[in-house]
């Protein structure tokens, strides 16, 4: 699977799962804007996933796993990138829950996405499992 399609694939698979479980409607302009933002950012995050600098966290977020492979002057930017990605991800989970008419489902949506992000991570990427980091 091409890296560029990964975000979309995860979003699609998560949405299908959610629809099957709770009749979630995930398509909305806000969700579209968030998807677009995340897809654009993915081009910057993909090499960081590959190098292991950034890992897929178990809670549906991304985390700075090992910044050692990132040039010193860019570590602050990577931190900003992660913060922006996590802000979008949190907003996405809330939006999906809202679009479904059940804001209280945010936690379940996050959990579903967290599982999908881990499942869809490419070989070589680091994912958080059982409290530790594991390379796929």
């Amino acid at each position, binding site marked *: 699977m091409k890296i560029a399609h990964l975000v979309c694939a995860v979003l699609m698979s998560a949405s299908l799962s959610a629809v099957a479980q709770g009749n979630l409607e995930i398509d909305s302009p806000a969700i579209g804007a968030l998807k*677009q933002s995340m897809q654009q950012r993915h081009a910057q995050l993909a090499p960081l996933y590959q190098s292991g600098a950034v890992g897929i966290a178990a809670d549906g977020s991304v985390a*700075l796993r090992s910044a050692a492979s990132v040039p010193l002057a860019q570590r602050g930017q990577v931190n*900003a990138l992660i*913060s922006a990605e996590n802000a979008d991800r949190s*907003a996405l989970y809330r939006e999906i829950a809202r679009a479904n008419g059940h804001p209280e489902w945010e936690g379940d949506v996050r959990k579903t996405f967290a599982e999908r992000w881990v499942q869809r991570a490419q070989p070589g990427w680091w994912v958080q499992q059982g409290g530790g980091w594991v390379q796929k």
Partner: protein
Amino acid sequence: MRRLCMFLCTALLMWSPAATALGVLSLKIDRVEHPAFGLANLSFDFPSDGRVSLSIGALRIADHRWRRLRLECAGGGFDAAVLRCERGVLRLPGVRESVRVDFALDMVARAGTLELSVATRGRIAIELFADGSARANVSALDLTLLREWVPGLASVSPGGRFDGVFNWRPSRDIELSGRLDGGHFGTRDGLQAAENLGVEVSIRLSPGVGGWDWQATLDWQDGAAYLHPFYVEAGIWARAHGDFSDGRLNVREAAISLEGVEQLAASAVIDFRAGSLVRAAVALANADLAVVGPKWVAPLVAPAAGDRLKFAGRVSGAMEFEHGELRALDAVFDEAGFSLAGGDGGPGLAFGPMSGHVPWRENRSTQASLHIGGGWWQKLALGAFDLDARIEGRAVRVDRLRIPVLDGALVFDDLSLNDGDVGWVGGGSLVVEPLSMPLLTEAIGLPSMSGVLSASIPGLRVSPGEVALDGAMVVSVFDGYLRATGLRLLEPFGVGSHLFADIEARHIDLAQLTETFSFGSISGFVDADIRALELVRWKPVGFAARIDSSPGHYRRRISQRAVQNISALGGAGAMAAIQRGILGFFDTFGYSRIGFGCELHAGVCEMDGIGKPGADGRFVIVSGGGIPALDVIGYNPRVDWPVLVDRLQRVIAGNTAAEVR
């Protein structure tokens, strides 16, 4: 002060010289103790071939210990009370490279020389004097050796080259001065790291009460460091003094020179045995926020918005920490300014110049008082206002906050916000004191409209990603009013920012409306209901709207131009079915009712008109009445919203000729 044993502490020596049957002279020393180092179970062997062999049962330097060391000297001996080792090779357990050792120690005069070198990785030449003093010259010492010599430092991978001089005068002082070049370190996770460090350092210790007093200067001239989440570059200079005893480093005062800060001072107590920062205090005066804000504030408070966050003005303040936790903070702003550009690149939000004092204490409430000279929200200018807030832990309470906007104001009452684990949560109430519509429409770039806007929102609720306003915002305009309820602003600071509202419009004067937007001329009044309006970046992306003529008796005329414009909205061949024969003969026409609806979803407007649509999908938008009269009929019940908006803008701009069939 405890008497220091400078050299081989003879009081602790136990000599055991013995000649073996093989002609080897052995010298055994139980232990040598010194505050800085210790040796135990030393055994010198002097074979008859001129070599010297030394085994050390245990070596301690500071808190680091090695066991079973062996030194083999190619030459040397014990002659006239001088113990010599020439071309010695010392191997340390776990250390890859051996250490070349040469020494000549006069046991009587208690003086001598000791030289340690590791291939091309550095040399330490030590001179020991009879008065107990010592001097060490360190040349090009490769600090990567520390990873092997001091296992505790391996986790930070130190490196670089150190040149310096170490002077020790017992009962007087210890001095170290030198320079680090190409210095670097890094934790495994990369969150604490530095590269290409060039640092001049000077430290002086002297005996104090129960320990040592010290003074130090540090001049960081080259390189950079990342100390998560801060990226810091060279150009920092510091001078500090304090004391050290019982494993505790007390920094009484440190004066630090930092770019953008007029004065910066700190104090701290560090417990090395517990590995903890017991307490620390930092005070700064007259810091330039434009310099320190992006470096020290944005990475901490808003890393995701760092590029959009701008700072100006000056701040002074102080912070106190205990056991690594912030206990107190004071910030005094002087003409400070903050702005957060919108996620879409728009003007966003800005406040300033701002002056005042914000105190915070961990265990008691404080009162913050700020005067804000003005600001911007989107295209709206905000007037000067005062902010008085009570701060309790992670909660902020404001009794009243009045922010002037144009000729009105936003008045918040009983605002309470808590920074919980999930984000900011709280609420209050909001009243919008009347804003004149001519000023508002001018400010946001709309055609001028008369009237006023006001709002009463008794239930303002804030939760992560959402601001909900339970109440009503009313705009009196075009002789009628718009009433917005169910206002909810979602993800206000993100890319998915959007606004929900239900809008009810009553008795809107079409004559004023069409004149304002240069749409031709329609006399009469309409009511409108727009349910579930959703705006993304102020553009509609969803709603269910219905517009109908207002009940009542009033003049109902529509101009030829307005008919043409309505027709033009339908696009080429799409909409108008009018009595072409009469259109050109009259300027205005009578009508009995105007009515149409639009449900916008997924970029498509599903339209209908008055009554049920015909079998062919046609629907009446304007129903004729009076003399002369005409009907305007829509043919296409599905219209792409962006296309419709584009046509409307072109009609208003007068760029589209009506297509009449």
